[in-house]
């Protein structure tokens, strides 16, 4: 209807924005995304400085203070702001230290899955042929299983621990990157700029990583945000099922599993770790939505 008209007169045209500035313009337009980013940064800072922020050591048991309620409830004290758990450990300190595990899981899973997935996707998309078919079938098989179930089985095989949970989650996450990268490479491979680069004598490795890859970053970044939150959720679920981090690690999912039996007696030991998971995941998903809006011009609001 209203055709976008590009001015030929450079003086009246808006100053062309740099990529980053335009990204920030669209990202910051999304209020939720900015809130999510702020919250995420705050969690990162808390995780980094957990030793200084936390009032107590996470595994320190205060034998005289079992299941002390939070400070605003009757019986609560300022010594344990968010109360204590069944063996007298400070909830706040455990939650603060727990952020380390969640972020750690997210980062390692994303870095691992992205590195492996993108590399495989690039190679497979670039080389094509039988290798392509074989790898993509394999990825289809991994995706045919529900992610949590596959992670559970992998952990059962490898033995329950946080490290193995991370490995399992990274394995089930990477097919998404293989698919995305491969699709992008197939789309870009035949484009003129790639042909031009090839004619200019650019080698295949450089062609893959320096020429093609930057042009398919947007969906990868959005997917990375998604994996980050999924990884945190899955790791917490594994912890909850006793297949992830093992007690007394103050991992949020593991804390929930330990707290289950007090569900009707001490609401705070159940509510708070879950709330921490929810808020963290929500913040990352808010950011992810903002990233998608800012990076994917197709989905930009009209």
């Amino acid at each position: 209807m209203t055709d976008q008209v590009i001015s030929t007169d450079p003086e009246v045209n808006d100053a062309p924005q740099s990529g980053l500035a335009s990204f920030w313009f669209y990202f910051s337009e999304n209020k939720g995304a900015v809130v999510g980013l702020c919250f995420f940064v705050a969690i990162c800072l808390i995780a980094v400085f957990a030793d200084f922020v936390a009032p107590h050591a996470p595994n320190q048991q205060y034998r005289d203070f079992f299941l002390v309620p939070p400070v605003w409830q009757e019986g609560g004290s300022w010594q344990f702001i968010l109360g204590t758990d069944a063996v007298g450990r400070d909830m706040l300190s455990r939650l603060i230290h727990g952020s380390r595990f969640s972020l750690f899981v997210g980062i390692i899973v994303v870095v691992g899955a992205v590195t492996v997935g993108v590399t495989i996707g690039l190679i497979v998309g670039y080389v094509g042929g039988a290798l392509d078919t074989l790898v993509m079938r394999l990825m289809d098989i991994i995706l045919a299983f529900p992610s949590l179930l596959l992670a559970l089985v992998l952990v059962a095989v490898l033995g329950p621990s946080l490290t193995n949970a991370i490995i399992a989650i990274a394995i089930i996450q990477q097919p998404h990157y293989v698919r995305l990268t491969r699709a992008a490479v197939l789309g870009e491979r035949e484009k003129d700029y790639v042909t031009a680069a090839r004619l200019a004598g650019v080698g295949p490795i450089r062609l893959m990583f320096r020429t093609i890859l930057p042009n398919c970053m947007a969906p990868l970044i959005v997917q990375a945000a998604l994996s980050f939150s999924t990884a945190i959720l899955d790791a917490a679920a594994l912890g909850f099922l006793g297949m992830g981090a093992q007690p007394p690690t103050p991992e949020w999912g593991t804390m929930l599993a330990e707290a289950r039996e007090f569900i009707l007696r001490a609401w705070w030991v159940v509510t708070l770790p879950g709330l921490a998971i929810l808020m963290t995941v929500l913040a990352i998903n808010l950011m992810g939505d903002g990233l998608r809006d800012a990076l994917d011009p197709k989905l930009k609001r009209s």
Partner: protein
Amino acid sequence: MFGFLLKRFGLLIPTFLGVTLAAFSFVRILPGDPVLLMAGERGVTPERHAQLLEQFGFDRPLYVQYFDYLFSALRGDLGQSLVTKRPVWDEFFTLFPATFELSICAIIFALVIGLPIGMLAAIKRGTWFDQSLMGAALVGYSMPIFWWGLLLIILFSGTLGWTPVSGRISLLYYFPNVTGLMLVDSLLSGQKGAFASAVSHLILPTIVLGTIPLAVIARQTRSAMLEVLNEDYVRTARAKGLSAKRVIGVHALRNAMIPVITTIGLQVGVLMAGAILTETIFSWPGIGKWLIDSISRRDYPSVQGGLLMIAVIIMFVNLVVDLLYGLINPRIRHKG
């Protein structure tokens, strides 16, 4: 249509082979001796070890073992549970109706609430109404459902005392297992209050399992609807002087449903993963809980069989979704 079906079916075969291979190798890629692994911490005598090795056929070449496994699986023989000694196939199908019932209720819950939410949000896009609905949907999408279940238990079972904490039906009722679906069986039994009891046991698990699909469906419906509302044919429909209800409910909705159906199909995997957590929280005697128990008891044939069956079910549902997709989207149907 028939050609389409056949082609779609043909595509399943390599995936099925791959899935069986994955289920097969999961026990075999384990470092170390499968027999020792199955025996767990107890350990076995050397004689018993050799006997087991032969019993399970582990002394034969790998590919022979795989084909053996594949053809047994095709016949419905998934081996024997190490714990109960019953066939895995029977165990699975005794418990499957419980999970099926829960999943169906959850997906209906998600659709009945998610679709209207997505449509309303799309129609009122940009308003506070849209933003709060989509905010809620994102919270649902970010929800650790195992915690969500505990919260609901605290509120509805603990504080309010409205719903039971676990199980499928009150112990007061006993009736024969006809379909395995508690809602149906309780009605068939004709016992007073049995159906109500079954429903009250279902409510919380349904909400918990349905939350993420609900959020995904609402978000997907909204974005599909927004896209469709910008299409030329919606303008044509409006230019015909049709009511807004008809433009949205007939012309836009039908087209918006095409991507949404794909999303619904993808939720089956989410439901299966969610069932593991939901059933654990509510002590729901379905395959999710059975799998978790089998894993912790190192009952590998059960885990292996369950893994395979779930993958097959997901493949089957995706096939059905594809067919539905063809039914709703004439462009696919006529490609035949």
